[in-house]
């Protein structure tokens, strides 16, 4: 224990080393920023495993491993190190290592396709969050982006390739921005809470989309008139596939790099521009921002619009990158915008964090997909485990403060235990 120096006027703790307790606290907080999301994930995995065990009697280790194998991540292990069929535990299933590796490659591409979209929908939540806003409307903004992308991509013809792709992406981004911007304007002008308005906007987007692709709807396919689906995106509007899969069916498109670029842009806006300064100031303390001469309402609007841009782009890269068409059923089944909330929260609303949490969720989604699961794990089991993990992550992240509190309380409690009890006389 250090003793405080006495009888000299100023306390000298300066230097960069965390010798002062405030410095230690700051260091701890920075460390907590990495450790707690990891703990959260681990805890979610463990509890999901317990649930699997209790409800089905299956081994949670096997289930977890099946998900890991199905995500394609084992492909990253160099084949000189190990026979991939051993990692996958599917030596009986695949005749040759070649086939197993190919399967893993396809699965990894699927994982990264999910990751791409999740990065963007995660950023959509995170940017608003940094301005103190909770954007639940990522899903609706994603719909708007997807609709705009399919409208431009499929209906516009005879455009050169670069121009067509760019136009589709820009329109999708703009559509998302406008959609989120509505909530931003409402918050800025009349104070309508963005949680309420974005949920309402989600439903409007849902039904507008359902109408557009419905039988006889404006964007419905010209060829198959009895299916509620759009026309196919023109070749000139498709995103380039830079990593084709072994069977040359789908592969990973350059949208992945758009998402990575978005992560960089997100960081730059927040940390290197006056706009980002304002957004963060408003997010931390709107009253102090106002006092500092910053327009809080302007930032509410801009933060929402920028959030919407990310979500709109997410919709566009899905359409232009691999889906190539959009239909009622896609709208009804989509929840990628909502998973974005979990991605942003687990990633602590930072660029790096969002990348890793998007990768985690992408791997979980792909790994538990029925198609990718190797025997003998039942697909439903793995799929449910993914849902459980998702739910638990959201729950734990929401209880983040509680986790931190318990962590600190534990430390605090040790102090009285150590003390020498004063004697009773």
């Amino acid at each position, binding site marked *: *224990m*250090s*003793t*405080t120096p*006495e*009888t*000299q*006027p*100023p*306390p000298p*703790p*300066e230097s*960069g080393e965390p010798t*002062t*307790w*405030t*410095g*230690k*606290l*700051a260091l701890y907080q920075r460390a907590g920023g990495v450790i707690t999301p990891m703990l959260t994930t681990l805890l979610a995995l463990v509890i999901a495993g317990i649930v699997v065990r209790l409800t089905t009697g299956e081994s949670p280790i096997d289930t977890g491993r099946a998900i890991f194998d199905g995500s394609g991540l084992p492909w990253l292990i160099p084949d000189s190190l190990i026979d991939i069929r051993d990692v996958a535990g599917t030596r009986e299933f695949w005749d040759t290592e070649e086939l197993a590796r190919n399967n893993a490659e396809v699965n990894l591409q699927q994982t990264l396709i999910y990751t791409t979209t999740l990065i963007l929908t995660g950023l959509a939540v995170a940017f608003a969050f940094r301005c103190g806003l909770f954007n639940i409307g990522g899903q609706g903004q994603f719909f708007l982006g997807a609709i705009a992308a399919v409208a431009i991509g499929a209906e516009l013809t005879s455009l050169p390739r670069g121009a067509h792709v760019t136009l589709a992406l820009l329109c999708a981004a703009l559509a998302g921005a406008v959609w989120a911007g509505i909530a931003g304007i409402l918050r800025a002008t009349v104070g309508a809470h963005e949680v309420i308005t974005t949920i309402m906007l989600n439903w409007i987007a849902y039904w507008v989309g359902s109408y557009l692709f419905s039988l006889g709807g404006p964007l419905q396919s010209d060829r198959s008139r009895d299916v509620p689906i759009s026309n196919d995106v023109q070749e000139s509007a498709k995103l380039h596939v830079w990593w084709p899969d072994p069977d040359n069916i789908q592969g990973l498109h350059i949208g992945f790099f758009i998402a990575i670029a978005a992560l960089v842009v997100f960081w730059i806006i927040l*940390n*290197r*521009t*006056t*706009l*980002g*300064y*304002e957004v*963060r*100031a408003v997010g*931390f*303390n709107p*009253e*102090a*921002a*106002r*006092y*500092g*001469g*910053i*327009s809080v309402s302007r930032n509410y609007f801009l933060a929402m619009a920028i959030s919407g841009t990310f979500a709109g782009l997410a919709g566009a890269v899905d359409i232009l990158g691999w889906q190539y068409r959009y239909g009622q059923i896609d709208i009804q089944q989509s929840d990628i915008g909502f998973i974005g909330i979990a991605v942003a929260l687990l990633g602590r609303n930072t660029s790096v964090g969002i990348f890793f949490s998007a990768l985690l969720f992408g791997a979980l989604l792909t790994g538990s997909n029925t198609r990718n699961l190797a025997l003998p794990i039942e697909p439903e089991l793995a799929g449910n485990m993914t849902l459980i993990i998702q739910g638990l992550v959201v729950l734990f992240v929401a209880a983040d403060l509680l986790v931190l509190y318990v962590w600190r309380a534990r430390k605090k409690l040790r*102090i*009285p235990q150590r*003390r*020498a*009890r*004063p*004697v*009773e*006389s």
Partner: protein
Amino acid sequence: MADAQVDGASPPVLELRGITKRFPGVLANDKVDFDLNRGEVHALLGENGAGKSTLMNILYGLYHPDEGEILINAKRVTIDSPGAAIDLGIGMVHQHFMLIPVMTVAENIVLASEPRKGGVFLDVNAAVQKVRDLAATFNFAIDPDAKVESITVGQQQRVEILKALYRGAEILILDEPTAVLTPQEADELFGILQTLQREGMSIIFISHKLREVLKIAERITVLRRGKMIDTVPREGATQDTLARLMVGREVLLRVDKTAAQPTEPILTVEELRVVDDRGLEAVRGVSLEVRAGEIVGIAGVDGNGQTELIDALTGLRTPDAGRVLVGDRDLTTANAHHHLDSGMGHIPEDRHRRGLVLDFSLAENLALHDYDKEPFSHFGWLHPGRIVASARKLLGEFDVRGGRPQTKASALSGGNQQKVVVAREVSRDPRVLIAAQPTRGLDVGAIEFVHRRLVEERDEGRAVLLISLEIDEILSLSDRILVLYEGRIVEEYGPDVSEQQLGIAMTGGTREREAVA
């Protein structure tokens, strides 16, 4: 150290011996000795963070000491919870009251040990009667049936004291009791304490205000950075000797300043009317003028329109009527941004709510007004390097301790946080500086710094408008004093007005006299 024993035969009711309390990296109390005699008011004096509250929380069972012992009536005791403290006859009145606003005074007082009817039901009449008896014994003026939310802060404090007495307290700890009171209410409190003292109560009075400690306490124990420095009797102690014990060096309590040399008017306010959040008119036609090179003080009891006036002057609230001019520029309806660009500096009332973004670094906080201007940014592109470099210079110049430019503002002590705010406002070279409660919650050393700086700014030829609830501050700094009462300027005084006169004007006394006349 603790040889300041009374010569009488009776032992002290309370004795703390060698109390040591460590927090991670901090020695909050270092072998502190303290004793309290029956019927005595013993003040515990020290700057913020000196360890006063830690010591009292140990006594009240909220913390456990690492070393040392507590004796009550010469018997060693272990106090491991507030409940145990109460059983031992120790009562504590916290700085922030622990009352339930929607319940009556009597209900609040008997809470947790209510008189019951049939073992289950609250016996309201018995409760009211008990409270009435108690109030009569100690000569308190209080209505047991009044709802706590409807009585004044001073009365709420009396409820807290009664609560402690009801639970059988013989040792009463008062934590910074005057922080929330007007001067008049503080005087009433001192009257009450004297009554309690006559009835044999022993009182520990925690404070960092020298004047009131000298007024009320028989003995004064000074803590500095966790150590007991000395225990001195009131006789022979002066504000200067106490301040030196408290801070550890000579402190200039009187603000050293020459007569003002005011020149042309900078801030002109004409017939300003401002509505508060509830839609009521809080500022009702205020006119004033602040000239370059003078400090104009606005005195007043809290809640007489100060907040709304400040907001309207600084562009954070749009006035209903009237005009605000800086130089000849009309800023009546301009927003905060325009005010800042028109040469106004504003040290806000509440540095946590408004003055600082606590999660921002010091550098970012220092750039709060100018982040969007050269050299800190260029076409919307920030230059963090320049912001940090400028911050490093300012932190040195304004002697901010405990933080580098990258440190979060929340990691600093209150005094240093306020220095950051002052540094930012002053460094922008404002023509008029609006200082609202600039020393709230600061310790003697930091107050000295802020006061000296304000006078320096005056001498540089800036117009300074000081709005403060502290009469001492108004009196020691102002060249002219305006009294704000119920949203109007009711009096104007020179710097040599007496505290009495000012106190009467602040509570509307002069206006009533005029009304009668």
